[in-house]
């Protein structure tokens, strides 16, 4: 499956999910340090 529209949709999906996971991890680590 090399269609650029399909690839773009999957890349966008996993990039958004990955970004949110990293954001949550960073936020939790900062809170754990402060606590």
């Amino acid at each position, binding site marked *: 499956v090399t269609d650029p*529209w399909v690839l773009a949709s999957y890349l966008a*999906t996993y990039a*958004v999910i990955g970004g*949110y996971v990293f954001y*949550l991890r960073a936020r939790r680590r900062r809170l754990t340090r402060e606590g």
Partner: protein
Amino acid sequence: MTRKLLAVAAAVALAAGLWAAVVSPPDVFQGDFVRIMYVHVPSAWLAFLAFGVTAFGGLMWLVRKKDHWDRLAAASAEVGVLFTGLALLTGSIWGKPVWGTYWDWGDARMASTALMFFVYLGYLALRRATPDPVTRARRSSILGLVAVVQVPLVYFSVNLWRTLHQGLTVRPDGIQMDGSMLRALLVNLAAFTLLYVALVAERMRIARLEAELETAPLPAAGTAVSSPRLEPGT
């Protein structure tokens, strides 16, 4: 430990979903573009579930006044906004090659989904703008209960107003989809559901840490400041 297991299970399920999407057959009319459905539809369904859970958490907070219900409602709303954003994003990418446009404000499904996205962004903004935890929980619980009305409206918008978006595929009279495509869709739906549970669990944990920090007593001056220690002979 449970959270780590959930995260691993979600990652494995997402990989399985990706594999199922790759090996599923192309559509007779749409060709490979149909594969976008395996991320677009689960994103939309999980957004509906997330906002339903937000309303339920809000209702339970109003009845029981327990903090964890408010944390559940808030966590689910934030993850719901993420999934709504994904549904809008992947829908736009799908729309360009199939409909010839990324966006059409005249389409009932697109416009109502965008409205739902902004209303729940407003829900999150309301929470940030209300410092008192009890007032915040009460206001957001009421908003969560009112805003959930949009979920059936968005879902049935394709039948209520026949515009650009296709009609319901999963209907009371049957599922209008080939079995191999349905299997791939169900695998991805299960993966996104696991991801939703893992993200909400993590977001609730963060909210609990924030609440603990908010209520933690400030250290007394005597314990925070220590006098300089003088060495003999200085």
